[in-house]
């Protein structure tokens, strides 16, 4: 299978301070965020990324998206066409002067999609995140969870080939989260897109992903990289899935990997 994402020996170091004259930087202390990470995603894979707070997950996602570049190593991504990559940032990053619907329509607008097509796609994406009611409201009028959902809708609206998600459901209540988990799983099944999904919820990772990668504490290194095999293999995920013994076993493996990388 072709590799959709190929990450080799990536390192990323942040300078500690920016100098007063723009270009000058103080070469003193710096923060090594990612230290030699390598892994590849095949087309259509659903991979969860787990790691301690501040370890370098968002940094890695930025490099995969092309918004940041590694200091060492290489990141290769097969599909870099317009709208082929979507990224749900850790914060919602909505344009405050646009309503929810207008925010969700943005990627299509930038891609030159016609008005009618756009409206249909926006409605569909809003329905997927249960935000149809709030379509005409402005970001400042939304709750925290609603803002994140708007941001998820914006990522889904282009029907991307590669979907990068940085803790998209962290601000949602358990029930909404479960519904969105299931819906995301269905979308993935249907569209055969590649997903790299940062999450803190081990249960969520186990439920959704085919494969899990666990990072160590900063600087991020891969301490665990294994497929997740649930009993109803490749089958649909339902609430019942969470109660199977395979589920608990896989979750426990991830937790212990996380514990291992945390020391």
């Amino acid at each position, binding site marked *: 299978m072709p590799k959709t994402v190929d990450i080799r020996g990536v390192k990323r170091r942040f300078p500690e301070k920016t100098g007063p004259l723009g270009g000058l930087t103080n070469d003193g202390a710096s923060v090594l965020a990612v230290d030699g990470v390598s892994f590849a995603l095949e087309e259509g894979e659903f991979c969860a990324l787990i790691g301690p707070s501040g370890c370098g997950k968002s940094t890695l996602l930025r490099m995969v998206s092309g918004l940041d570049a590694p200091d060492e190593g290489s990141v290769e991504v097969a599909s870099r066409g317009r709208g082929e990559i979507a990224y749900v940032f850790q914060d919602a*990053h909505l*344009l*405050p002067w646009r309503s929810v619907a207008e925010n969700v329509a943005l990627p299509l607008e930038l891609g030159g999609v016609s008005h009618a097509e756009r409206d249909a796609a926006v409605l569909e994406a809003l329905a997927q995140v249960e935000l149809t009611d709030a379509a005409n409201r*402005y970001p400042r009028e939304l709750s925290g969870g609603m803002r994140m959902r708007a941001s998820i809708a914006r990522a889904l609206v*282009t029907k991307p080939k590669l979907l990068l998600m940085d803790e998209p459901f962290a601000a949602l209540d358990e029930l909404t989260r479960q519904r969105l988990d299931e819906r995301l799983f269905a979308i993935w099944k249907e569209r055969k897109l590649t997903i790299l999904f940062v999450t803190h919820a081990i249960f969520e990772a186990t439920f959704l992903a085919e494969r899990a990668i666990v990072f160590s504490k900063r600087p991020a290194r891969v301490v665990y990289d294994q497929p997740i095999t649930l009993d109803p293999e490749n089958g649909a995920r339902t609430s019942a899935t969470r109660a199977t013994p395979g589920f608990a076993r896989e979750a426990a493996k991830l937790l212990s990997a996380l514990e291992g990388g945390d020391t």
Partner: protein
Amino acid sequence: MSAARRAKAVAAILLPPLGAAIVGILIWESIARGLAIPAYLLPPPSAVAAAAFANAGPLASACLTTSLTALAGFVASAVFGVVTAFVLASSRLVERAFYPYALILQTVPIVAIAPLLVLWFGVGPRAVAASAFIVSVFPVITNTLAGVRAVDPSLRDLFKLYGASHAQVLVKLELPHALPNITTGLRIACGLAVIGAIVGELVAGFAEGSPGLGIVVMTAYRQLRTDLLFAAVLASAFVGIAMFVGISTLSAVALRRYERNN
């Protein structure tokens, strides 16, 4: 009910400045009278009002003349200033190379380039509008540039991610984001366009036909008609404030979407 509330809201907007004006006029009158400052230095407001009334026709026509050229210069500043700022913002190199020199427009005494203005624009309103433009464009550039530079980098990332063209970033991100700053620049440009037009009238305008406020000011000054002078000064302030209120109202409408995301 709604009409009553609307009336109340309008009153809340109009009463404070009116009250301040009345208090200001009373203080001025009492200073002028109390300190016995000679009327040829500081005429009491009553005298200014009388002069304004006696010269209402010429003052009104001068206001109109000056308003038109100031407005033309202002519009030119708004358009050229915003465009220039976006060009400067397109790269640090371009900004570093050219931005400081834009300041020359602000520091050049209009009288020094009056002959060039007349050469290029001819005597009359076009040269006056050019003067208003020169005096008022720099604040528009500076404020727009500051607004564009302050765009949240993560929103830039978003646009980059979706492959936005340079023009799209400009129209859909930088321009809307800089709009509050642009209106700040335009508020400053209002007053400057008025004084630029007045100065321009003194070196490149027509002195007859429909002379502007600059001509009235100089005439009154030369003839020590301080009451008329102050009336003309207030008239020019009035032109500036009218433009200012216009811009503020427009921007209040345009910026309704901009209240900070909290």
